[in-house]
């Protein structure tokens, strides 16, 4: 049987109040070891206060080819941005 350890994606919360952020991946036999390895590989210099690991095969990603149908519609909706509206200067900060 091929015994290569599965691949895990690692997410680290850098500071309290911030979201976990993807930092890289690593191999480990199970989730418990993946957390231990992530601590050694990705937080040697105080980079985090919390670690998430998830098996790489369990992640569903959007396909690069779907970029246009997924994201182009929002490009056209410029009225979703505050800068779309001109507020007179005398009204002050809004």
């Amino acid at each position, binding site marked *: 049987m*091929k*015994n*290569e*350890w599965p*691949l895990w994606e690692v997410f680290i919360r850098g500071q309290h109040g911030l979201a976990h952020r993807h930092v*890289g*991946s*690593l*191999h480990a*036999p*199970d989730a418990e*070891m993946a957390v231990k390895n992530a601590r*050694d*590989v990705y937080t*040697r*210099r105080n980079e985090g206060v919390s670690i998430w690991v998830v098996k790489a095969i369990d992640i569903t*990603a959007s*396909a*690069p080819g779907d970029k246009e149908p997924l994201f182009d519609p929002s490009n056209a909706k410029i009225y979703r941005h505050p800068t779309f509206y001109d507020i007179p200067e005398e009204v002050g900060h809004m």
Partner: protein
Amino acid sequence: MYAQMVKSTGERPKTLDEMAPDERAFQMRVDADIKIEPKEWMPEGYRKTLIRQISQHAHSEIVGQLPEGNWITRAPTLDRKAILIAKVQDEAGHGLYLYCAAETLGVSRDEMTEQLLAGKAKYSSIFNYPTLTWADIGAIGWLVDGAAIMNQVQLQKCSYGPYSRAMVRICKEESFHQRQGYDIMMKLCAGTAEQKAMAQDALDRWWHPSLMMFGPPDGDSVHSAQSMAWKIKPMSNDELRQKFVDQTVPQADYLGLKVPDPELKWNEARKGYDFGAIDWNEFHEVLKGNGPCNKERLEARQKAWDDGQWFRDGLMAHARKKNARKMAAE
């Protein structure tokens, strides 16, 4: 560099007109500095060249632990020992970041390891030289890591996203490596005549191998043009080498050490140092496997791989059993 002789397609880069539509769209994105991400379309040559380059780089980090690991048990003080352990651990981490970057291109970690052990994948020539004295640990940090930083800083701009991100992380950590090396050299150079002679001897032995780290001269580097067009090698070997010499010579002067090159001279006209010819024959021999430590290094990697087999298998068996028990309980 850490990837010194990466074979690319061996052909000159195509012009935009000669490219098929997919390839042209790809090249235009690269030209516009848009990063390429794992699942996106890429030319087969780009993928293969990157796998070679990143795996060579990763293997270098891993094999690079061996010459320094040699001195962990004999570091002169407890502080130096703790620092050296931290540095060697960093090198292991760098290897892991890089293996993961390569894996996004569709090659597995085990395949890469097997290629290294079979002698099919290379690692940097520099790690085939022995560390004879404590001063060598200083020289490696100062020169070898200094050269590595010079290479890696420009690779942060590489067109392939995962490789570029690994480089950003590595560069952040690498500066400590160079500074701790220079710190060792400063200490030795401020010490007894014997200690200073030891530092000079280390510089004498590591200088030329360090210059060789940047790879063969541009004229002989057949694969560079394509790699530069793909932006997986932003600067040429000779440019980086010159930059390294210009940066390092004043640092040697500060230590009161003499760079072992009688032809080394400041060239006011081009604001850089002229330096003597490099023995490329030695470089090619070391790459071919005939350096002082090639055999020892590969044997050490092979032994680690073989001795770790029961451990890798054991943990995997444990994970499977635990998983099966959990499934049964649900």
